[in-house]
C-alpha cells in the first residue's frame, strides 16, 4: 500500500508569517488575537480577530500580479512558497504531471467581494474591476499555486466551511494513495475579515465579545468561554508518496497515516456526536492505530458553548477511559478560527507536537467546566513525546474531517 508523508510545511497566521513564527507563538502560548486594523470596523460590535500581522502582498507578489490576488490567495502563495522551498523538490516535466494541488477555502476571495459590493452599492461606482471574478473565485488559490510551480496533476478547490483544509489534505492524501499523483501541495486559506462577513458572524451570536483585552477573548473548553474569534491565514503542506520521498532523501516531518470524513446528515449548524466519532474511528483504522496509541488531540475547539462540550463527549465516546490520558488542546485560542485554513494550521501545530515534542496549550483556560473534563493542556505548552496524534475539524453543515499523524 502506498503511504503518504509530509515533506514540506508552510504557514501564515496571526502568530506571524512562516512556520517558525507559528511554532514559536504556539510554544510560548502567545495569543495573536487583536483589534482589527485591515478593514472598516465602524459598524462592528466586536472588532477583534486573529489578523495576520504586517502582511503586505507587495512583499511577495510582482507588481503586475497584485491586482489578481485576493488576500486569501496571497496567503496561500506565501504558505505554498515556504512549503515548496522546505521540501527541496525539483521536478522534471514528467514528474510535474504527477503533482497536484488541493487548497480548501471557506469563503474564497470574500475580501475583494466585500470591497466590490461596497463600490457598487454604497459608492455607486459605475463599473466593477474586470479582475473581480478571477480574484474572488474559490479556486484562485489552487490555480495560482498550480501555475507558480507548474503542477499539472489533479488540482481542486474544496469548500466545506471550517473543515475545508482538513478535507483538502485528506483527499489529497487519498489521491496519492490511489496512485493518481506522487506529490500534492495541499492545505487551506481564508481571509474572512471583511466588514459584512464579520457582521454576519456577529448576527449568529457565536463571536466572543472583545472586552478589555482581545488576547483573552477566545477561551476554548473553559467554563467562561464566550464564543469564537475569527482568524485568517493559510497553511500548506507538501504531501509525498513515502518511497518517493525516501528515494530523494527528503526530510520527512511526519506520516499522514489516516483520514476520516463523515457527515452528520442532521443539522445545519448544531454539531453531532455519532458522525464526528465515526470520522475519528475511520482515521485511526486507516492509520492502523489503536485509540490507546494516540497521545495528543488537536481539537476543533472553537470556544463556543456547544462545540467544546460536544467535542469532549465525542472524544470520550471514541477513546473511552483513555480519553483522560489524552492531551487535548485548541490552538484556536491563539490563532483564532481561520475558517477554511484552520485544519491546515492545526495540522502544523500537530506536526510540532510530534517533531519538537512540544504540545501547544489551550490559552485563556480559567475555570473548569463539568461538561469539559479532559486535560486541555491549560495555558502552558507541555514537553511530551508524541508518536501518534489526531487533528479534528467539524464544520458548520455537519461535515467532519479528521487527520491522523504518526511519527515518521
Amino acid at each position, binding site marked *: 500500500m502506498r503511504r503518504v508523508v509530509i515533506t514540506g510545511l508552510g504557514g501564515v497566521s496571526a502568530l506571524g508569517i512562516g512556520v517558525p513564527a507559528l511554532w514559536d507563538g504556539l510554544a510560548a502560548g502567545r495569543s495573536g488575537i487583536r483589534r482589527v486594523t485591515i478593514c472598516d470596523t465602524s459598524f462592528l460590535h466586536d472588532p477583534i480577530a486573529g489578523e495576520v500581522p504586517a502582511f503586505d502582498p507587495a512583499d511577495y507578489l510582482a*507588481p*503586475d500580479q497584485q*491586482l*489578481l490576488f485576493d488576500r486569501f490567495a496571497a496567503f496561500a502563495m506565501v504558505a505554498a512558497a515556504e512549503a515548496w522551498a522546505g521540501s527541496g523538490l525539483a521536478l522534471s516535466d514528467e514528474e510535474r504531471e504527477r503533482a497536484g494541488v488541493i487548497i480548501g477555502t471557506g469563503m474564497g476571495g470574500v475580501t475583494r467581494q466585500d470591497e466590490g459590493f461596497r463600490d457598487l452599492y454604497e459608492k455607486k461606482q*459605475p*463599473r466593477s*474591476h*474586470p*479582475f473581480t471574478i*478571477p480574484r474572488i473565485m474559490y479556486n484562485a488559490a489552487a490555480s495560482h499555486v498550480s501555475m507558480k510551480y507548474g503542477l499539472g496533476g489533479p488540482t481542486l478547490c474544496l469548500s466545506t466551511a471550517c473543515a475545508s483544509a482538513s478535507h483538502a489534505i485528506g483527499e489529497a492524501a487519498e489521491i496519492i494513495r490511489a496512485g493518481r499523483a506522487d506529490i500534492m501541495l495541499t492545505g487551506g486559506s481564508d481571509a474572512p475579515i471583511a466588514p459584512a462577513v464579520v457582521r454576519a458572524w456577529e448576527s449568529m451570536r457565536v463571536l466572543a465579545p472583545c472586552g478589555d483585552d482581545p488576547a483573552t477573548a477566545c477561551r476554548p473548553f473553559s467554563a467562561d468561554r464566550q464564543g469564537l474569534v475569527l482568524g485568517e491565514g493559510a497553511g500548506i503542506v507538501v504531501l509525498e508518496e513515502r518511497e518517493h520521498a525516501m528515494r530523494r532523501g527528503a526530510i520527512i516531518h511526519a506520516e499522514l497515516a489516516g483520514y476520516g470524513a463523515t457527515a452528520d446528515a442532521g443539522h445545519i449548524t448544531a454539531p453531532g456526536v455519532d458522525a464526528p466519532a465515526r470520522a475519528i474511528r475511520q482515521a485511526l483504522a486507516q492509520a492502523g492505530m489503536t485509540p490507546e496509541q494516540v497521545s495528543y488531540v488537536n481539537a476543533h475547539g472553537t470556544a463556543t458553548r456547544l462545540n467544546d462540550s460536544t467535542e469532549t463527549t465525542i472524544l470520550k465516546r471514541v477513546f473511552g477511559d483513555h480519553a483522560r490520558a489524552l492531551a487535548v488542546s485548541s490552538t484556536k485560542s491563539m490563532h483564532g478560527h481561520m475558517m477554511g485554513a484552520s485544519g491546515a494550521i492545526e495540522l502544523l501545530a500537530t506536526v510540532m507536537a510530534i517533531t519538537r515534542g512540544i504540545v501547544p496549550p489551550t490559552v485563556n483556560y480559567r475555570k473548569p467546566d463539568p461538561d469539559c473534563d479532559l486535560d486541555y493542556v491549560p495555558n502552558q505548552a507541555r514537553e511530551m513525546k508524541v508518536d501518534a496524534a489526531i487533528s479534528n475539524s467539524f464544520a458548520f453543515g455537519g461535515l467532519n474531517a479528521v487527520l491522523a499523524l504518526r511519527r515518521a
Partner: protein
Amino acid sequence: MVPRLGQNLKSVADWGCLTMSELDPLEKKVIELIAQKKRIAPESITLDSTFLELGIDSLDGMDLLFNFEESFKLTIPDEMAQQMRSVRQVTETLRTALANKPPAQTN
C-alpha cells in the same frame, strides 16, 4: 504564450514616428496608461504599436479597458472594445466614444 516586451522592440525614434511631444493629450494619456500597466517607458510605445508587440494579453486588455473608461469617464461598448488591437485603434475608439458620450448629468 503571448510574447512579452523585449529589448528588440523598436523605440519611437526607430520607427520614425511622432515623438511624445507631438502627440495630442488623448494620445499621451493612452500611452501613459499602457506604459503604467506594462511597466515600460512611454517612449517605447508608438501609435502604431500593436497589443501583441506590447505583450498585452486578453487579461491585460480588460484591465486597460477599465482604466481607459475610468480615466475618460465613459463606457466602451463590447463591440468597440473587441476592435482595439493597437494603440491607434484605442485612440480612435476613444475619440468616437467621447463624441457619442451623453452630456454629463446634472443632479
